[in-house]
């Protein structure tokens, strides 16, 4: 978006650079309504587009990342917008499929699209990503077929995709575990010499995803220790969506988590997680540094979980509608579209085409999910070990014999 008067224009709309204001009609700002949250109005928060899609002026906070945004093309903007819309649609489909009984569970990313797409698009092919369980948007950007994700939440497998195909690890459910895997993988990249060579086809980095709650785990903090000490090419991407199931931020920390990194000796950056340009720019900058051998960064993407924790959760038990309302106005898609319309990055046909594509994808993945066969029972014993294992083999035999017996008998009682 190499458009030199972007900043100026934003300025004319009266927005203070770096501040994060919901529209005035919303009444009091979140901190005065909602307890337990942090970082709203934090001048350290990197933003490029305000809630209405206005490009903000360059300021002290976003300046280090401004060039990345300047270098983005209209095409880039359209790619990101398309991602945002498709990802939201895929997510909505997951939700719907769960409600229809096709999936056992669905953890929605609704509200976090910009955080994930910004991060996901900043990754290059030969980088590697370690997700939690809500990173459907990152999965999408890595090229993982959403139907694969459904397999896991349908109970057909524990993650059907080959992580090495898209350099996107399996989802990790035990909070914090994957942060260490990411650091180890990054240590491996460094040991392979694939850092700081200056060859963009070679230098690689790792990105590890967790949530605000995840920052409390020992593994998360040990990952910061190992990353710091080994100067590993890893970026910790914390989506602070304000909630860990029913627990607000103030049950996990008393200062925003981006500051945690500073206690370990490397930079922490706060970014408006609903601003796709900002998340992209901040993530790209951190990844570039990691690839160049400048070590780890922790990014806190300040965002919001618009839906329930998962389809099993009932957020009315612990949070107010008013809070959700506030965040509706910070919606990343609305924001991106406003920005693109204003800047002329796309015409109405484009937006219509994206919506149509979303319909198509939704239909395709719904059908694919509904038609997903149950796995063959004896495959339960497959892939347990890389080499033959007598106990597993014996049990497979036992299982087959037992079922064969049934088939003969026609079942008991």
């Amino acid at each position: 978006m190499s458009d030199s008067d972007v900043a100026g224009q934003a300025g004319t709309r009266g927005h203070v650079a770096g501040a994060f204001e919901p529209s005035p009609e919303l009444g009091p700002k979140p901190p005065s309504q909602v307890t337990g949250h942090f970082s709203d109005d934090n001048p350290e928060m990197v933003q490029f587009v305000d809630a209405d899609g206005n490009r903000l002026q360059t300021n002290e906070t976003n300046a280090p990342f401004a060039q990345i945004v300047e270098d983005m093309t209209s095409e880039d903007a359209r790619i990101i917008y398309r991602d945002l819309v498709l990802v939201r649609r895929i997510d909505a489909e997951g939700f719907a499929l769960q409600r229809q009984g096709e999936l056992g569970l669905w953890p929605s990313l609704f509200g976090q699209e910009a955080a994930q797409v910004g991060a996901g698009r900043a990754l290059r092919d030969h980088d590697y990503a370690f997700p939690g369980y809500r990173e459907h948007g990152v999965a999408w950007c890595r090229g993982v077929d959403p139907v694969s994700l459904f397999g896991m939440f349908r109970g057909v497998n524990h993650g059907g995709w080959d992580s090495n195909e898209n350099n996107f690890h399996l989802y990790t459910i035990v909070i914090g575990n994957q942060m260490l895997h990411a650091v180890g993988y990054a240590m491996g990249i460094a040991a392979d010499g694939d850092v700081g060579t200056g060859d963009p086809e070679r230098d690689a980095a790792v990105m590890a995803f967790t949530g605000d709650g995840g920052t409390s785990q020992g593994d998360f903090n040990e990952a910061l220790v190992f990353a710091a000490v080994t100067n590993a090419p890893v970026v910790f991407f914390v989506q602070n969506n304000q909630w860990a199931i029913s627990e607000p931020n103030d049950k996990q920390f008393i200062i925003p988590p981006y500051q945690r990194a500073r206690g370990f000796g490397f930079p922490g950056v706060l970014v408006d997680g609903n601003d796709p340009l900002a998340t992209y720019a901040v993530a790209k900058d951190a990844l570039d540094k990691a690839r160049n051998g400048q070590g780890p960064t922790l990014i806190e993407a300040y965002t919001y979980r618009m839906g329930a924790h998962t389809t099993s959760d009932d957020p009315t038990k612990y949070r107010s509608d008013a809070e959700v309302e506030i965040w509706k106005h910070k919606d990343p898609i609305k924001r991106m579209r406003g920005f693109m319309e204003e800047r002329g990055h796309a015409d109405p046909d484009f937006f219509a085409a994206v919506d149509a594509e979303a319909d198509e994808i939704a239909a395709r993945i719904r059908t694919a999910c509904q038609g997903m066969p149950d796995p063959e029972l004896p495959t339960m014993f497959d892939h347990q070990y890389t080499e033959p294992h007598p106990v597993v083999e014996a049990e497979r035999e036992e299982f087959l014999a037992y079922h064969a017996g049934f088939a003969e008998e026609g079942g008991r009682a």
Partner: protein
Amino acid sequence: MSGARLTLAKGLNAGLRKAMDKDPKVVLMGEDVGKLGGVFRITEGLQKDFGEHRVLDTPLAESGIVGTAVGLALRGYRPVVEIQFDGFVYPAFDQIVSQVAKMHARSLGHLKVPMVIRIPCGGGIGAVEHHSESNEAYFAHTAGLRVVSCSNAADAYWMIQQAIETDDPVIFFEPKRRYHERGETEIDEGGAPDLGLYDARVVREGTDATLLCYGPMVKTCLQAAAAAEEEGRNLEVIDLRSLSPLDLPTITASVKKTGRAVIVHEAQTFVGLGAEIAARVQEECFYHLEAPVLRVGGYNIPYPPSRFEEEFLPTLDRVLDAVDRSLAH
């Protein structure tokens, strides 16, 4: 609530409430146990009634939860910790094995850590990975702990209170797939438990073989026994209730009577609790056994994706198949 027939979940909730009423030192801790009442609603309403100082929503860190609970116990509190799901207890394993289990002995009895670690356990609910594990063997193997498992609402109500009253640390397993099953019997809150916390219960008397089970498998075994009855077989069913220590007198008396034993649990069998029971029974009932002690359990693979779980977990049919094999001797 006196005389009510509760679900297992509500039985626990009522038991916790009673314990908190009785002893102001009882505090509940865990992830989401406060406003939400826990993801299974076992602590529902308790924060509202007892306050945030007695029902603590903790940071998301299991070692931290158990570790700070140890500190609270040393200060004179009686923490009841909720682990959100079985698969998330491992980050706290070090604190449990190295500290909780050993504190009393290593202090020559000077220190007590009267705490209960509640673990919703087992499968059968169509959940994703790490949400269906049965990890009682790890704790039963750990000297210094007591490990119990409830199988029904009335036991849940009484056992949680007994566990909280115990000065030893107790790992308390709750069969999550039975949470919403209503108890057979009415709970008389003014009454008293009919068994000690470490006593097994003969839930069905029989003569032909003994089914030894606990937690979620008690129901399965009772169903198996009912089905067997139709085939003219008379099975005794024992709900172990206490997994460490085991109520060996009750177990061996039954096996000496029937001459046959089948142990049923959801956990993988290899070095599972069933192995201990089999080892004990063959030792103590050697001349009474008419068939080897058999085990029915989860297969020895990590808990599979949920589409497999009906076949992974012991079913009525697999139990009866084992009974057949036992009787074939």
